[in-house]
């Protein structure tokens, strides 16, 4: 059992560092996996910091298992370590939707593939929302298309929470809309395709869609009139 060498835990090969966590590539009983390590925030009191981080870790694990139960494809959770502040997941072979759309932007759109991806996104979010789960960070870098099966996998539930409020669901969709507008406008109106699939699969879409119209009117460089 050698996770601890000379006091510093070797989590694997560092492949990404974000604002909240570091991502390592490793193996779990023989299978390729991802280890997500949530940072300790040094400015916090150490005991509080540990408690808060573990709380966030558990929330992420809970939300992922809830998403799976609702039928949304997420990576399989292999382990949760409250001492090292890590989550271990299955490694998903494939490309992030962000990269696929950027490629469409520069090399031309494959209409059929784009429609398929957009539909899958809409259906997945609809399942989450109907089940009372809000993802919290819906961007194209948090969606992976699995190699071979072309199945959409949602990742990073670090900001997700349970809510049935149309407001929260609308904001969830709005975040995605803004992300698509800023990065992938060369792919055409992907959001419309996503919303169409969302409307078809969700049982509570009308309240959310109404709210979305309101949310769009807020924000920067918008005048709140009427």
């Amino acid at each position: 059992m050698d996770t601890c060498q000379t006091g510093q835990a070797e989590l694997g090969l560092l492949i990404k560092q974000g604002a909240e966590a570091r991502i390592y590539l490793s193996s779990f009983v023989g299978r390729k996996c991802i280890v997500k390590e949530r940072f300790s925030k040094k400015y916090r009191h150490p005991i509080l910091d540990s408690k808060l981080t573990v709380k966030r870790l558990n929330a992420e694990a809970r939300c992922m298992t809830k998403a799976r139960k609702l039928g949304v494809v997420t990576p399989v959770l292999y382990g949760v370590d409250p001492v090292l502040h890590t989550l271990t997941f299955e490694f998903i072979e494939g490309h992030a939707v962000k990269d696929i759309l950027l490629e469409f932007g520069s090399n031309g759109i494959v209409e059929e593939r784009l429609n398929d991806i957009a539909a899958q996104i809409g259906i997945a979010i609809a399942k989450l929302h109907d089940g009372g789960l809000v993802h919290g960070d819906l961007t194209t870098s948090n969606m992976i298309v699995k190699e071979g099966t072309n199945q959409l996998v949602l990742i990073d539930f670090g900001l997700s929470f349970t809510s049935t409020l149309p407001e929260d669901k609308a904001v969830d969709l709005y975040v995605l809309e803004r992300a698509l507008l800023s990065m992938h406008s060369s792919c055409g109106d992907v959001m419309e395709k996503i919303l169409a699939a969302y409307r078809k699969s969700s049982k509570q879409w009308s309240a959310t869609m109404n709210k979305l119209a309101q949310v769009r009117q807020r924000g920067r460089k918008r005048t709140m009139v009427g």
Partner: protein
Amino acid sequence: MQSAKMEPEVALLNASLVPDIFPVLAAAHKALVSKSRESLTTRTLHSELVYNYAASKHISESLKRCGISDQMSYILAVRFNASDDEMTSVTNLINGKEIDLEELEPRSNRDQILKHFKIPPQELAISSLSDAITCRIAARDAL
């Protein structure tokens, strides 16, 4: 109810609840980590494996459901760091015929698994039984 306190120490699982070896490995990994931190919930490493596999916080219920009883005729024996001699004595402990691990999948009791781990049809549509069980083993303490 068996909780594996014998020589050689071995974990005995109800094999009908095991569709695949991977979730057992995940439970084993978890048990090993707990042991290395001196934070076992059950009395031994091997009983911890059984407890982890059940993916429930209720200890005696888990050992009862996923462990074996005297009448059971389909058992998976698991031992950590086993030498050949130790595995032979485990084989002698059990009155039965040893079969290949590949038999786990066809001989598993799907309905019993769905019921015990509370796997809904929506989840089954997107996941294998093995993955569903592994998630539950991993997330048990977070719930």
